[in-house]
């Protein structure tokens, strides 16, 4: 899926604004809500621009089938799935090659943040269900899943926050949406653990020069940091109510 960079001039207008009116370093509007599903052990709902994604966590619980249990740590299983109604044309609900791959990268993005050794011989299931999709659903899904894991009360070294940067119309921009992804020249989704400053997801679709790359990477890092603040606020709102912010330290 190499980026061709089709009609690139129209992606950024003469004022330097993008198709949806954002500046080059602006995120789409994000809202996160924690604990929205009663039956799951932990859950979160994220709206990331036009993306609407539900994340649910079950576990730790006993593993079925039993032979897949690990003796020294918990088994993290992850499913990224797009609902049939999440796209413009009906999507076949059977997991596609793309969804299987994204499930794997989301699992690998979350795994370093979890202290799986605390729950040997158990399984933790993470479901990321895309209800409405726009570009960057893997990043949005990781943000929601990480908050849902914290909501489930699973021991974590850190949260995980994710954001993409990319290149459209020859310019490096933050948070690529669907049109920009299709028409643009490069897409660089990353996920980091914000307090320990480690990268847990790193993908690049398209071509960037060294200089462009560092610019895009740093921009995406800034995006991740803003997402961390939103994740933090969402968790504090759920658990400590509105007094949470001022009563941070007593």
């Amino acid at each position, binding site marked *: 899926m190499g980026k061709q960079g089709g009609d690139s001039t129209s992606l950024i207008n003469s004022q330097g604004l993008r198709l949806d009116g954002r500046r080059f370093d602006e995120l789409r509007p994000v809202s996160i809500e924690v604990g929205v599903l009663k039956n799951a*052990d*932990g859950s979160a709902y994220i709206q990331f621009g036009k993306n609407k994604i539900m994340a649910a966590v079950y*576990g*730790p*619980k*006993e593993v079925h089938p039993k032979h897949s249990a690990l003796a020294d740590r918990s088994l993290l299983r992850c499913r990224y799935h797009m609902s049939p109604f999440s796209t413009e044309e009906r999507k076949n609900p059977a997991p596609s090659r793309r969804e299987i791959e994204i499930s794997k990268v989301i699992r690998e993005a979350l795994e370093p*943040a979890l*202290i799986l050794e*605390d*729950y*040997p*011989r*158990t399984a933790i299931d993470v479901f990321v269900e895309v209800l409405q999709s726009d570009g960057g659903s893997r990043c949005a899904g990781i943000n929601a899943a990480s908050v849902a894991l*914290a*909501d*489930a*009360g*699973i*021991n*974590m*070294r*850190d*949260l995980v926050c994710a954001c993409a940067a990319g290149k459209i119309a020859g310019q490096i921009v933050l948070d690529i949406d669907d049109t920009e992804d299709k028409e643009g020249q490069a897409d660089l989704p990353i996920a980091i*653990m*914000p*307090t*320990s400053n480690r990268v847990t997801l790193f993908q690049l679709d398209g071509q960037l020069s060294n200089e462009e790359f560092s610019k895009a990477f740093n921009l995406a890092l800034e995006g991740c940091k803003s997402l961390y603040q939103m*994740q*933090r606020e969402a*968790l*504090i709102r759920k*658990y*400590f*109510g509105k007094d*949470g912010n001022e*009563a*941070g*330290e*007593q």
Partner: protein
Amino acid sequence: MQDIRRKYVIPGEVVARGNLRAEANVIRRGDKIISTRVGMAEIGHDVVRVVPLSGPYIPRIDDLVVGKVIDYSAFAWEVDINSCFFGILPAQSVFGRDYSPARDSLTEKLAIGDIIATKVIAFDRTRDPLLSISGPGLGRIPRGQVIRISPAKVPRLIGKKGSMIRAIENGCGCRLLVGQNGVVVIVGSAEGMLKAVQAVNLVEEEAHSVDLLEKVEKLMGTTSSLKEESKSSISPSQIKDELEPDESSTSVAKPNDSIKSIGTSTLPDTDVYGNQT
């Protein structure tokens, strides 16, 4: 007590720096101490811990838990204790040292589906938790209503030195057995039990509110005048009778004091909230 600093934290957040002992739900990275859970951090002058606000039940030694027998083999019962680990209750600890699978039948003592009050006697996360039913207040629970709450909210339901349990018990004339695993058994009259369930649900829903005890007392007082009645009409001896099983052979009687003392003594977390109320 005075020099404990409290602070809301989320996973990955730096709770404190320096040479402090990391006690619970925290990890050390360099000189930073980092929370692994959403909760209330307590920073003393030499210790740091986080009291989590959500999460599964992880067994701890000496915890009183309420479980359900789900299976048995020739040597042990398997007990669902509302955790990701199943409890193992060895037959020897019930029948005694000279237990012989050829002679004794496990189902004589406990059958599948029985609810038991039990204590965790060994657990290190690499082996399933080992349970015991020998002790005051432990054993099969013949009747009552079982409800589940989030294990993280158990300290709130017990209250400081058992104050919350006492308020609910007095308010509806029931006995409450609160397992550390979030399983609660309510024994009493039908109306009393209904009311107790309401009260327990209130505690779970509003666990964060500061005037929780008042709210519970209000619920107890306003829904009916049972509060006054029950205080006068139920004497400790009556309660003991109620808890005594009909078939006296199997289960250990539960004098209400032992329930409470077990509940509170295993609870270092209780006074976390105490200062707020």
